[in-house]
């Protein structure tokens, strides 16, 4: 296992919700990362953000780790959930709520409903 792999494994093991993104949750550097971080922030989900732009090893490593070529990437309880398109679809369909509930992740249901009402 490479260093990047070990580091990624450790991060997703130690944090229930992890977003690998370009930039940080308070200052995203890409529209796609910004969208997913924005949804999680708005829904009051506690998550660790990993800025792939700050570490080229992680930036390449995460793509190999998940066999997924794009950033952002969301992990919950060590499982890869999806990228921007999938998280957006799951937010609007309510599947994201279910997934958080099944994994014991706290989130604001009213906020999720507001997102759906505004994008319905």
């Amino acid at each position, binding site marked *: 296992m490479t260093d990047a792999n070990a580091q990624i494994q450790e991060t997703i093991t130690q944090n229930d919700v992890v977003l690998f993104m370009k930039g940080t949750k308070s200052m995203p550097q*890409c529209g796609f990362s910004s969208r997913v971080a924005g949804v999680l922030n708005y829904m009051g989900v506690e998550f660790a953000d990993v800025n792939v732009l700050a570490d080229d090893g992680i930036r390449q490593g995460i793509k190999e780790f998940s066999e997924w*070529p*794009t950033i952002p990437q969301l992990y919950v309880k060590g499982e890869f959930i*999806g990228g921007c398109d*999938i998280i957006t679809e799951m937010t609007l369909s309510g599947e994201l709520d279910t997934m958080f509930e099944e994994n014991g992740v706290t989130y604001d249901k009213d906020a999720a409903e507001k997102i759906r009402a505004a994008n319905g």
Partner: protein
Amino acid sequence: MPVSEQIEQRLRAAFAPRELQVVDDSESHRGHAGFQEGGESHFNVRIRAEAFVGQSRIARHRAVHKAIGPDVIGRIHALAIDVDA
């Protein structure tokens, strides 16, 4: 061949979709990270094919990534995928 045509050809060959749209959306990302003069950086794909029946979202996206191929994926900056059976 434009990248959008290349993506379209590969997706047609892989999935025989009944609906397929590949849009070079680069211009709407002008000034953002990854934008390059002349476009061909940001793409939107909308695909509907029987081939995706019974597959999870992640499996569908992975199949699309695979069909487009690492050579093309490695050249572009962003790829938004809307995939359904």
